[in-house]
């Protein structure tokens, strides 16, 4: 009887040790990547199905390259740009479906909501789509990475370059919600710091379709530059109507957040000469072209910076899981932060303590129609903004993780 008890105890102990060992590695021997994105709304062209495809490509490439002993799976969902839908979905994924990492999250509100849920449940969030700086400032946490761009980098690229090139008086056309206001605030600071002057701004409802009234007000201000602190359809409609009302070329437009999908849908005729800041351009070098061509073959559109960043962030995560030999969030994040990122998207990119992935950004100018030689040949890259200058310096960060 005694021996039987002992044997049972020993077995139980061995089992506990074994399962302990297993849980220190990969839970369920599967790494599950969740893509939460806008599949049907304003941002679905710049993120959406393209971001899901980029994730799939990253997973396939990782399996082919690293031949991991664990399985990698993907789930995806439409957050409809709503914070409550996003956080509910993320909670369901983490609690019931064993999702290890929530990714993409275009629209700041959804990103902030999911970051909170993920932190609570000890999971990682990788954000390629959203733009606002609070993600790595006031609201930062140690399990989140803001990957592709942010409003500081956009302002620092476009507003700085345009002001330095003589566009020293500005008037802002601002989408009246958190993102637009953040973009206006960051850009105004850069304009003033570079010797320019902000003459005023008009806050338009979000979303809006008719911009003629607002453009006439901007026109009346006499500013040399009209800064568009909005995104997506608001930006494209404003640009189109600016040309119609003779605002351009007397005054110039600066699109503070523009994606290649916007330029593509507007055409070069209406966008030529505009400056924009981007984290990625498909036609930058052989490596970017090779990847983008693969993407194009499947998606029939060239990737936006969000989609390229999505691939890079998922790949970096999966490699870190393999290197750390575990899917434990803390250990994987430590591995991600100590490993530099070197792929077609970023050279010597690194993730700072506040969760900001810093990498070179590019100042692009849209080509004239007769300068474009082949499909999607849209940008002159005028300047590379080095990683250390592109993003908010850590010294100015309000992130509690880095505050001294």
């Amino acid at each position, binding site marked *: 009887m005694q021996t039987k008890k002992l044997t049972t105890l020993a077995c139980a102990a061995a089992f506990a040790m074994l399962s302990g060992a297993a849980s220190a590695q990969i839970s369920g021997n599967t790494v599950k990547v969740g893509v939460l994105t806008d599949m*049907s*709304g*304003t*941002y*679905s*062209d*710049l993120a*959406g199905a393209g971001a899901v495809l980029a994730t799939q490509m990253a997973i396939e490439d990782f399996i082919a390259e690293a031949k991991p002993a664990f399985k990698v799976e993907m789930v995806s969902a439409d957050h409809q740009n709503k914070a409550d839908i996003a956080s509910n979905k993320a909670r369901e994924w983490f609690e019931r479906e064993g999702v290890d990492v929530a990714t993409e999250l275009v629209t700041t509100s959804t990103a902030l909501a999911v970051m909170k849920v993920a932190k609570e449940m000890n999971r990682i969030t990788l954000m390629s789509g959203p733009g606002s700086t609070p993600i790595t400032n006031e609201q930062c946490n140690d399990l989140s990475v803001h990957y592709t761009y942010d409003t500081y980098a956009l302002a620092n690229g476009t507003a700085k370059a345009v002001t330095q090139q003589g566009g020293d008086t500005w008037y802002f056309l601002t989408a*009246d919600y958190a993102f637009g206001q953040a973009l206006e605030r960051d850009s105004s600071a850069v304009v003033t710091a570079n010797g320019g002057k902000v003459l005023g701004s*008009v*806050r*338009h*409802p979000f*979303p*809006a*379709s*008719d911009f*003629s*009234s*607002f453009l*006439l*007000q901007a*026109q*009346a201000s006499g500013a040399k530059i009209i800064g568009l602190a909005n995104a*997506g*359809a608001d930006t*494209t*409609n404003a640009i*189109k*109507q600016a040309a*119609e*009302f*003779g605002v351009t070329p007397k005054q110039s437009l600066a699109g503070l957040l523009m994606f290649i*999908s*916007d330029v*593509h*849908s*507007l*055409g070069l*005729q*209406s966008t030529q000469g505009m400056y924009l800041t981007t984290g990625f351009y498909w036609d930058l070098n052989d490596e970017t072209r090779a990847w983008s061509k693969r993407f194009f073959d499947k998606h029939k*559109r060239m990737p936006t910076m969000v989609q390229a960043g999505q691939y890079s962030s998922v790949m970096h995560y999966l490699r870190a899981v393999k290197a750390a030999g575990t899917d434990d969030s803390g250990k994987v994040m430590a591995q991600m932060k100590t490993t530099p990122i070197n792929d077609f998207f970023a050279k010597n990119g690194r993730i700072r303590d506040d969760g900001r992935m810093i990498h070179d950004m590019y100042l692009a100018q849209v080509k004239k129609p007769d300068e474009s030689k082949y499909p999607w040949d849209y940008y002159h890259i005028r300047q590379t903004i080095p990683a250390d200058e592109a993003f908010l310096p850590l010294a100015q960060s309000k992130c509690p993780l880095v505050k001294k």
Partner: protein
Amino acid sequence: MEIFGVPSALLGSQLLVGLINGSFYAILSLGLAIIFGLLNIINFTHGAQYMMGAFVAWIALNKLGINYWVALLFAPIVIGALGVLIERTMLRKLYKLDHLYGLLLTFGLALIFEGIFRDQYGISGQSYPVPELLQGGVNLGFMFLPIYRGWVVVAALTVCFATWFIIEKTKLGAYLRAGTENPQIVQALGINVPLLITFTYGFGVALAAFAGVLAAPIYQVSPLMGSNLIIVVFAVVVIGGMGSIMGSILTGIGLGLIEGLTRVFYPEASAVVVFVIMVIVLLVRPAGLFGRA
């Protein structure tokens, strides 16, 4: 010179822009008012039909080489025919039921149409160039008026008043009004009432498509362009008085002007001013400004 701290030139230009937007509201709400006034259907597909009108013009130009002027006729005919099909196969079965059924059906159809176009063309929209004849603009002293916008006002208002004339002043219009009022008697006089109703729905839909073609060179042709606009247009119809033809035209223009002024004095409120007016009008005159109680 300044009026309430706003330069009069800016004010003048905003009023003109308001008139331009107002004429869009007028033509769209007119289509809705006809369909509601004569058929008792709350046509929630109207925004999607407007969007499809713009897309047909875009497809016609890019795939078939059909220019803007032909598209102004072509798109309303195509989308109007689709409207006829919808009326014959679906709406017809709902006339005897509560308004709500028609509303739900047309709302569902709008979602389906938008979904199809979103799937095919993405969300960022397509560019449609301003026709060559109407490019450029004139300097009015207080503002630069794009010739195309001027044309939109003329075209929209002409179509609006022609429609009002047909319905209120001609024999055909009289049959139509009588046919919806008392179908049995009119039928007994040898007039094909069901055909008349089908034609009316098709015509209302064609008006939406016509507005879509007018809008294509101004806005990006995008699957969501209709749903962004349709709620405002419904408010216009409610303020004007559901079903009142002249009411919808005049209210459309008037609200465009008020919205334009709000954009100067308090831009943040410009998206809601129409609804504030709607609430006030409903409290004071529940049947709308021009409605018959």
